[in-house]
């Protein structure tokens, strides 16, 4: 993102300090939920943002305002409310296009989420373009949402899924990518921009360029990237890119499929139904143009409008500043956790990752870690985070993950480190004896 974008507020230009600290208290007040306590009575430190973020008042209000004042079904309604809803729904699409710097709003398809967006590509583009013996290349760090649809596609077409492994420092080198592209000659290289467990940020533009050299199409899973850093689809140049609304302070149930227009034009619709047609007869149908072709049924109207409010909100703060803020918190948490005995940080050092810190404690299950942190008000996630192949490759059943967003504080990062230290003590063997029955 550069100052060249006329929609970008001036406060976001690179000359401004990338520090939220001055306004952090104000931002936190924008999120009503942050002032609550948890079951134990402790104040909430919400560090589960990679799973889902919280909503600022402007998003809640935008949805509420829609339902209170102008909600109706969109398109083809010849009445005031429908016209107004349609206008707002399509304006939201335009805002998303600007957010990603897409060439046209026609390249923006509203879906139920990032998962639905990837499934749409697999079912539509995949079924048409993949044959038996073809390869889909992914990384071992993918979320299940970027693995299972390809396994399903393999079942339907006979194509297969190949994985690029991780290096010891939780990164993947350009050489590994180039080698895999050369060896497998994949039809599609589908990869995550930012790992939802490791926090590793992969060099999307470079990998896309490599894939181009080998004739592979590219899908980028930007679920953990779009909410946290500037994303420019013309600079990254993928064929497809997906993200979810709820991870960027937006409503649940809405996500975005970005696709290059020529692909979306050539792809058959996936879901059939209302809205996605020009004409239906007793013998067939003629699909609508973009983007309606991929939006069968009544779309998530108020959710799209809420997503627009969320995007406006984070853009106003500035994605560069959000990224820098999260990086600062990550540094505190990552550094602190690495100093604790028995704690292993699962992921690269802070300069190679965003605001996600996953860790494992020797001898303590992640669920017990998470449960215990909850009594201190700290919400983290425990488990495999929908990345079973990654955990298997790392030889771990589960990890505990803290993930930051724009409203988190240094104090919360420090509370995390302190509480993790206590957890270890709590579960360490201490010569306990069971009472005999």
């Amino acid at each position, binding site marked *: 993102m550069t100052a060249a974008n006329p929609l970008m507020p001036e406060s976001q230009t690179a000359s401004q300090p990338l520090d939220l600290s001055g306004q952090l208290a104000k931002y936190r007040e924008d999120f009503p939920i942050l002032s609550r306590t948890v079951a134990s009575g402790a104040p909430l430190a919400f560090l589960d943002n990679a799973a889902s973020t919280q909503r600022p008042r402007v998003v809640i209000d935008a949805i509420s305002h829609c339902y209170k004042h102008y909600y109706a079904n969109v398109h083809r309604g010849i009445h005031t409310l429908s016209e107004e809803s349609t206008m707002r729904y399509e304006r939201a699409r335009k805002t998303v296009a600007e957010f990603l710097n897409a060439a046209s709003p026609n390249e923006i398809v509203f879906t139920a989420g990032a998962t639905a967006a990837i499934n749409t590509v697999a079912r539509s583009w995949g079924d048409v373009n993949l044959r038996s013996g073809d390869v889909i290349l992914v990384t071992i760090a993918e979320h299940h949402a970027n693995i299972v649809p390809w396994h399903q596609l393999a079942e339907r077409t006979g194509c297969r899924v190949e994985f690029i492994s991780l290096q010891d420092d939780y990164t993947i080198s350009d050489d590994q990518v180039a080698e895999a592209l050369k060896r497998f000659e994949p039809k599609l290289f589908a990869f995550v921009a930012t790992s939802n467990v490791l926090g590793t940020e992969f060099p999307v533009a470079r990998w896309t360029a490599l894939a181009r050299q080998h004739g592979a199409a590219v899908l980028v899973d930007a679920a953990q990237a779009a909410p946290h850093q500037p994303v420019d689809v013309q600079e990254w140049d993928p064929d497809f890119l997906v993200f979810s609304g709820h991870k960027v302070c937006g409503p649940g149930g809405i996500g975005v499929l970005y696709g290059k227009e020529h692909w979306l034009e050539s792809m058959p619709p996936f879901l059939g139904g209302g809205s996605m047609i020009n004409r239906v007869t007793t013998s067939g149908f003629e699909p609508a143009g973009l983007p309606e072709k991929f939006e069968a049924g009544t779309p998530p109207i108020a959710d799209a409008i809420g997503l627009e409010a969320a995007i406006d909100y984070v853009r106003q703060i500035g994605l560069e500043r959000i990224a820098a803020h999260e990086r600062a918190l990550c540094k505190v948490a990552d550094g602190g956790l690495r100093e604790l005995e028995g704690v292993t940080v699962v992921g690269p050092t802070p300069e190679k990752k965003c605001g996600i810190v996953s860790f494992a404690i020797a001898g303590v299950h992640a669920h017990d870690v998470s449960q*215990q942190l909850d009594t201190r008000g700290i919400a983290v996630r425990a488990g495999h985070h929908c990345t079973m192949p990654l955990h298997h490759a790392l030889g771990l059943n589960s990890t505990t993950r803290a993930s930051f967003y724009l409203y988190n504080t240094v104090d919360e990062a420090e509370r995390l480190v302190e509480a993790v230290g206590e957890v270890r003590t709590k579960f360490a063997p201490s010569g306990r004896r069971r009472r005999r029955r």
Partner: protein
Amino acid sequence: MQNEQDIYEEHVLDHYEDPYHRGALQDATHAHEADNPLCGDVIHIDLKLTPQGKIEEAWFDGEGCVISQASASMLIEAIEGKTLEELQTFSADDMLELFGPKLTPNRQKCCLLGWRVLQSAVHSPLGGDEDDDADGPSFGGPSLKEES
């Protein structure tokens, strides 16, 4: 701290660190093992049943969180000497009660893993053509960790 009930009560941690009959039973007549792939908890149960249908001896092994392991220890301790008829009346709610501290639905799955393995173990004689490929307990409802 504050007013919450600590689910890691003393007796839970006691069972975790000093479990009852943790290990293998050499002359087991029945056995079953299952895991919860969502969190990696595994429980294996060995039973020695008399021809009259009494649980003469019970052992467990496994790995996983405090709740899954401590609850299995409590269960094994509680069911030894019971008949299969008595076992039939020991419901999931009874298991949660035996465990003690109140658990949220997600953690109840951890607590009930051993109990579910036991339900299968009594129907899984060793040495025969038992279906040790059984998928193990099926956990209904929303998955524990299918998020992102």
